[in-house]
Each structure stands twice: as structure tokens, then as C-alpha cells.
């Protein structure tokens, strides 16, 4: 369990997350991709903190802030989706994009 191994896993998670974010048509699935990317970031942060930074408290803080970002993203994201859905009944990124009125 070296730092390299951890970062590789984190990179894999970020890669999969990126694929999901780019490929999914629906907002909610797109958010799953984002979450997965942040999951990778989280793992990398903790990995650095634990193995390279000698446990400086700021490292932990970074991880918590990442999680807070996730929470904010989810909360506001779903609120937005609800607002959009209510107004346009759309849950697809494309159908929103083609809408000009």
C-alpha cells in the first residue's frame, strides 16, 4: 500500500468519473460521475496526508472540505434539477440544450 498505489486507484476513480460525467445524458447520472471524481480526489487527499505529508491537520481539513463540496454540489444540484424539471419536465442535458425559448 504505497502512495503510488493509492494515487493510481484515485486516478482510476477520477477517470471513470470523468467518463460518466461526459457520457451520461441525464443530469442525475452526470452528478454521479462528478461524485465519483470527487471520491478519487478524496482518496488522493487522504493518501497524501497519510503517507507524504506526515499527518498535517490541514490534509484532513482538505478532505472534509472536499466532502462539503460534494454535499453542496448534491444539494444545489438536485434543487436545480427539481426546478428545471418542474418548469420544463426535462431531465436530459440534451433536451435542455436544444431549448431556445
Amino acid at each position, binding site marked *: 500500500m504505497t502512495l503510488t498505489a493509492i494515487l493510481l486507484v484515485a486516478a482510476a476513480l477520477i477517470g471513470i468519473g470523468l467518463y460518466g460525467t461526459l457520457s451520461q445524458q441525464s443530469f442525475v447520472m452526470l452528478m454521479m460521475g462528478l461524485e465519483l471524481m470527487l471520491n478519487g480526489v478524496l482518496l488522493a487527499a487522504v493518501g497524501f496526508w497519510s503517507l507524504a505529508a506526515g499527518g498535517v491537520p490541514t490534509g*484532513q481539513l482538505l478532505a472534509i472540505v472536499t466532502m462539503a463540496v460534494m454535499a453542496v454540489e448534491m444539494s444545489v444540484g438536485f434543487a436545480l434539477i427539481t426546478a428545471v424539471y418542474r418548469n420544463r*419536465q426535462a431531465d436530459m442535458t440534451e433536451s435542455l440544450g436544444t431549448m431556445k425559448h
Partner: protein
Amino acid sequence: MSVVDDMAFWIFALTAIVSGWRVFCTDSMVRASFLLLASFIAVGLIMLLLGAPYLGIATIFMMGVEMMVMALFMVMYMMNPAGLNPMVMVHQHRFSIGAGIAAFVGLAAVMLVTDFADNPVASDARVVTDLGKELLGDSMLIFETAGVTLLATMVASVILSSRSGRFGPADEGSVPPPLEPGGQPAGRLPEEGGGHGHHHH
């Protein structure tokens, strides 16, 4: 690091990656949400191995509720939420795969060439206490900002999601979007039982 720890790490790592990948393969929105949760739990367990007990377990409970809420919204807004009819709802598929792989390869390359400092956390460090001290000490500002941001989040999400604005229902006069530019509003009308794949003649 003991052999057991190493083995555990690889099991968790594999779980995290495989379930993270399966998220985008399953048809059921509930399964997708909870596969993502499985990925988070595995990462949380890796954090425990890395000597961050609070962060690891907090990830598990935080993501437990987040993915629960995620599942609620997924089911609410996705057609065919249980995936009874298999579906593919992707666009720019090849490009996305390419981007994903490129990101992985790029990051991995950077990692492999960079020489990271080897400075592991002391095994007797009181990490939770440290974190608490940090929160109330040097990083107080971050902490306060986070608190206020979360309050703003609460207010914003309530405003956005609830129907009863001060100016009447938010959906008044709204029209479903067309599926083709300039087309008829699609909505979810009864005749369209065939779903997404059907309207493109």
C-alpha cells in the same frame, strides 16, 4: 504495512473501482446509487487503513445519506428507474471513454514520474484531536466559511426546489421541451409509451 493490510487495501481498491465502473453499466437507478455508495464505503475503509479513522467512517455515514438522497432523486426523475427495460442513455460515448482513459493515463504518468516525499503519519498521532484543534485554531476561517456556505446551500436548495414561490407556483405556464430543435413540446404524453428511443423516426 503488514501483508493483511496490503491485501485489504487491494480488495477495497478493487471494490471501489469495480463498483464505481458498474455505476454506469447498471440499468437500475437504485442499484447505480448504491453501487456508488459501495465505492465510497470502500474508499472510506482504505482511509481507515491509512490511519484516518474519523475521515474514513465519516465518509461512510456522509455518503450513506447522500447516496440515499441521490437514489430518491434518481428514481424520481429518471424514466424507467428500475431499468426493467434495458437502456443506453449515453452520448459522445467514444469521446467520453477516451477522455476517461486519457485522464487516468495522464494522472498515472504524473504520479509515476513524480517522487513523493516519504513522510508517513506517526502511528501514535492523535489525528482526531489534531483535526479538532485545527478547526478551532488556524483554520477557523475555513470552518466558519463552510458553516455559512452550508447555510446558504440550505436556503438556496429550499428556494429552488419548493414550488411555492412568493409569486405563485413556479411551474405556471411552463411547457415541456421539444425533443428536436423547434419541434412540438414532448413532455411525457400518453402516446409516447415507447420512450426516448422511439421518437426519432
